[in-house]
C-alpha cells in the first residue's frame, strides 16, 4: 500500500514527490510518455541556471533527485484507476496493480482526442472515452475501439465479455497484439464518423464503410482527461478543475502542472506539485 502515487515524472510530478517523500510517506511515481519539459530545447527563464539548462537535463536531474531521496520511480504505463475499499484507489499498469491512499495527477496537457470529423458531435451518442463506465450500454452489440497501444487493449479487455463483437480501429497505425474470439483489427484510415441521432457508421479514407453501435476512444497513453472521465473528476475544457490547494472534487485525488491549465511553465508546475504534495500530506495525517 502506497501513501501517494504520482502519475507523471515532469516538474509537477517530481516536485510533488520531493515534498511527500520528505514527509516520510511511501511514494511511487509512474510515468510513460515524454514530458513537455524533456522535449524543450533550452530553459532560460527558470530560477538558478545562469546559462540556462536543456529541458532534457533538467528533466533527468529531477528524476534522479527524487530517486536519491527515496521515491520509487517506475516507467510503467497506467491503463486504469479504480476506486478501492475505504477511500483507497487501485492504480493499474500493464503488469501490476498498486493500491494507494492518494493519487496525484501530473500527466501534462497532451490531449488524446483525434481530429476525425464527427468525433465531438457524437460524444455520449455512441462515442465513449470510458469502457467501464459505458460498456453496460453496449451489451451484445457490435462496437469499435480506436487506438493501438496498451491502453486500447486494456479498454478492449473491459468490453470483451459485454459486446458481441469488437473491431479495433488503428486509423492507419500498426496493429496491436491481441487475440480473442470476438475481436478483429482494422488498420484502415478513418475519414468520418456518421450517424443521425447517434453513431451509425464509420467511413474510411478509401470510401468503404463499417456499421457500428459504438466507438470507444483509447488513443495513445491515457492521460488526465481519460482518468478524469473514469473517476468522475470535474474537468473544464479538458483541464482538471482544482481549487487553490490542487484538490479535485474527489477526496484524496489532486492534480498539478500542465493538466490543470494556465501557464505551461516549469515554475508553475513546480509550485503546483509542491502544493499538491503538501495537501496530500495534510489529508493523510487527518
Amino acid at each position, binding site marked *: 500500500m502506497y501513501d501517494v502515487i504520482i502519475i507523471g515524472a515532469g516538474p509537477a510530478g517530481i516536485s510533488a514527490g520531493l515534498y511527500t517523500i520528505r514527509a516520510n510517506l511511501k511514494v511511487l511515481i509512474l510515468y510513460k510518455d515524454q514530458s513537455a519539459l524533456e522535449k524543450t530545447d533550452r530553459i532560460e527563464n527558470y530560477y538558478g541556471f545562469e546559462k540556462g539548462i536543456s529541458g532534457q537535463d533538467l528533466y533527468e536531474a529531477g528524476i534522479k533527485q527524487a530517486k536519491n531521496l527515496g521515491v520509487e520511480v517506475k516507467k510503467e504505463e497506467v491503463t486504469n484507476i479504480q*476506486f478501492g475499499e475505504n477511500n483507497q484507489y487501485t492504480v493499474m499498469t500493464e503488469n501490476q496493480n498498486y493500491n494507494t491512499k492518494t493519487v496525484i495527477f501530473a500527466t501534462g496537457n497532451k490531449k488524446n482526442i483525434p481530429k476525425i470529423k464527427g468525433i465531438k458531435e457524437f*460524444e455520449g451518442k455512441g462515442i465513449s472515452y*470510458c469502457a467501464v463506465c459505458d460498456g453496460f*450500454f453496449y451489451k451484445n452489440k457490435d462496437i469499435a475501439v480506436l487506438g493501438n497501444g496498451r491502453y486500447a487493449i486494456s479498454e478492449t479487455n473491459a468490453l470483451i465479455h459485454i459486446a458481441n463483437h469488437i473491431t479495433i480501429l488503428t486509423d492507419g497505425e500498426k496493429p496491436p497484439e491481441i487475440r480473442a474470439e470476438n475481436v478483429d483489427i482494422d488498420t484502415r484510415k478513418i475519414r468520418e464518423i456518421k450517424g443521425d441521432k447517434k453513431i451509425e457508421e464509420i467511413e474510411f479514407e478509401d470510401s468503404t464503410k463499417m456499421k457500428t453501435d459504438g466507438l470507444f476512444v483509447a488513443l495513445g497513453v491515457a492521460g488526465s482527461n481519460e482518468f478524469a472521465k473514469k*473517476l468522475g*473528476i*470535474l474537468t473544464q475544457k479538458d483541464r482538471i*478543475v482544482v481549487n487553490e490547494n490542487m484538490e479535485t*472534487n474527489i477526496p484524496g485525488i489532486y492534480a498539478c502542472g500542465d493538466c490543470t491549465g494556465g501557464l505551461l511553465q516549469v515554475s508553475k508546475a513546480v509550485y503546483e506539485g509542491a502544493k499538491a504534495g503538501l495537501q496530500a500530506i495534510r489529508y493523510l495525517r487527518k
Partner: protein
Amino acid sequence: MSVLKFDEGNFEEEVLKEKGKVLVDFYADWCGPCRMMSPIIDEIAEEMGESVKVGKINVDNNQELAIKYDVMSIPTIMVFENGNPIKTFIGVTDKNEVLEVLK
C-alpha cells in the same frame, strides 16, 4: 426539495406531465463517476428548493427509459420542461452549469 426516485412506473406522472423544469440524473450503482455526481445533484436540489423537481433514474432497473432517451453514457443529466428534454449534460458536470439551465 429532496431528490426523488424516478422509474418506468412514475416517469410519466412525475416528469412528462410536470409543467415546470425537471432535472433527471441517469445513474447506476456500479458507476464511479455517478457517485461523484450524486452530491452535486443533492446540492442542486437543495439550492433550487421547491422551484425545480429533481430525481434520479437507476438505468439498471429502467433500461427502457435509458433507451428511449438515448442514454449511452452515465452519468447523464437531462433537464425536461413541459415533458420534453431541453438540455443534456454527459459526464460529471459543474453545478453552476446545471443551475444556469434550471434558473
